[in-house]
């Protein structure tokens, strides 16, 4: 109940930041165009086995859901730094779940607000630049639960970053490192579909590939709809592992908790 209320409140807070949304869309459109231009140049020099349209679609979906991946709740981090987190510890709620709900609201609303207009814009781009329709209707339908499982996964990852912040009291170091891993292995910098085959065998099993790469591959047809259950299983496996890890870190932190500043 209270988890749902904090979720709702965080969504309403996110809706207030419309300026940030417009800025974010402009920024992600710019990055999308640059990346597509880059891959066009790459393909012009040396065509890859993967069809180019699928790469462009991959890039646009990554950019559209950027907010789901690399956006931390600065207010949450500030709470830890300033010690206002003390108040949250005086509540009869499970702290991990409470923050999970908050993170999820931000990531869900933040990415929907940006993804919808961006996907419209990206579909209006000329042939060979923009996003392509899904490979098939079953593929598209299969991608939706995968995206949701990806969201659960990324929220659990973010909560682990928050748990690290409680340890170090400054988010920058660990966040920087974890974000780098995330950028690289989630397919944000370079579509995972362009990695060497042998690498992909490993990378697609890592937690980072479960966030956006899995749903995007279902969308573009690089994973067939009949593989969906296997993919959901891998995603669900990581959701369970990451939540368990995050909870364990939170519980350990509680024992050695200090509250800064009086």
């Amino acid at each position, binding site marked *: *109940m*209270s988890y*749902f*209320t*904090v979720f709702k*409140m965080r969504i*309403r*807070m996110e809706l*207030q930041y419309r300026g940030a949304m417009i800025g974010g869309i402009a920024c992600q459109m710019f990055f999308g165009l640059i990346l597509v231009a880059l891959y066009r140049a790459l393909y012009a020099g040396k065509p890859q086995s993967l069809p180019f349209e699928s790469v462009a679609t991959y890039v646009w979906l990554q950019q559209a859901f950027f907010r789901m991946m690399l956006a931390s709740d600065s*207010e949450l981090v500030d709470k830890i730094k*300033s*010690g*206002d987190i*003390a*108040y949250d*510890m*005086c*509540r*009869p*709620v*499970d702290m991990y779940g409470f923050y999970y709900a908050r993170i999820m609201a931000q990531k869900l609303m933040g990415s929907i607000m940006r993804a919808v207009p961006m996907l419209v814009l990206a579909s209006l781009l000329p042939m060979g630049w923009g996003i392509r329709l899904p490979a098939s209707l079953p593929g598209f339908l299969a991608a939706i639960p995968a995206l949701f499982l990806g969201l659960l996964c990324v929220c659990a990852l973010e909560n682990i970053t928050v748990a690290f912040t409680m340890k170090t009291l400054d988010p920058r170091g660990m966040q920087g490192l974890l974000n780098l891993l995330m950028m690289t292995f989630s397919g944000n910098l370079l579509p995972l579909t362009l990695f060497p085959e042998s690498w992909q065998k490993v990378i697609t099993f890592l937690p980072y590939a479960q966030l956006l790469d899995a749903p995007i591959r279902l969308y573009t047809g690089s994973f067939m709809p009949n593989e969906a259950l296997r993919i959901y299983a891998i995603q669900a496996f990581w959701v369970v592992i990451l939540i368990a890890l995050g909870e364990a870190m939170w519980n350990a932190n*509680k*024992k*050695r*908790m*200090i*509250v800064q*500043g*009086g």
Partner: protein
Amino acid sequence: MSYIEVNNLKKDFTVKKKREKGKLLREKEIVNALKDVSFSVEKGELVGYIGPNGAGKSTTVKILSGILTPDGGDVKVGGIVPWKERKSHVKNIGVVFGQRSQLWWDVPIIDSYMLLRDIYRIPKGDYESRLKELTGALDLEPLLRTPLRLLSLGQRMRAELCGSLLHRPELLFLDEPTIGLDAVSKLSLRDFLKWENREYGTTIMLTTHDMEDIEALCSRVMVLGHGKKLFDGKLQDLLERYDTVRNVNIKYDGEMADLRLPEGIKWKQTEDGIELSYNPSDFPTSNLLGMLQDAGNIRELTLQPENTDHLIAAMYKELDL
């Protein structure tokens, strides 16, 4: 058994120091925030908890509210060990940290209250009547739909207090609740706390540096210093022990003769008289009065009791805090 039982409470913090030149590792220093603190508080008591900066007051409050785990000692609040059964403990307590905020910065305060309602599972009817009562007493009605960031410090403090009391806690911790408030806000806050304590028998533990808060609210006061409890009893007893010096202001009519006062009496000349301070147990008052009368025609004599802050400062000094 008392409502709050604290026995031999200990808490250490490790402070890492800046690395010194020529040394490979940073030195660590263990700060004993609480060395050995014991006390008990009965239900419905209003207890003041004072001590200089860094004495361990806030640390005690954080342990009692289940945020920190101590390094030693036993604590029971209503039969519950706060940090072990955090969730069931915090249901019954309310906390106000004077320099922190529990309400959401960007949203109207009523929305933050609704979140608190859901967190504490307050039944709807109960929530509404309690909110009405608190907003009335704290004069918050006109501010409910204002985002927190637009409120002044005093308004925010009242809003925070309302948020901490919505779930009718049986125990309330106030950590410097009057910090930065103007005189009117302070007075109304104190009145409100007294009312809440009387009306509902809420046990209140207050840490503050404002001695007027203590004078106005607390019958019992505990003094903490260097991580130890140094005094526990009535505020009056505490003051009497250190209230040794009397300040006297005398004005003379016309000329005043050359005045010679014995050593141990501090005095200085003013425009039309003198100001002096003396200790009645060192020097008999009637003797002093005689000397003063010999010096001229006294027009006016005022006695000023020592300011509480000075007394506390004298106490801290004597206890080497």
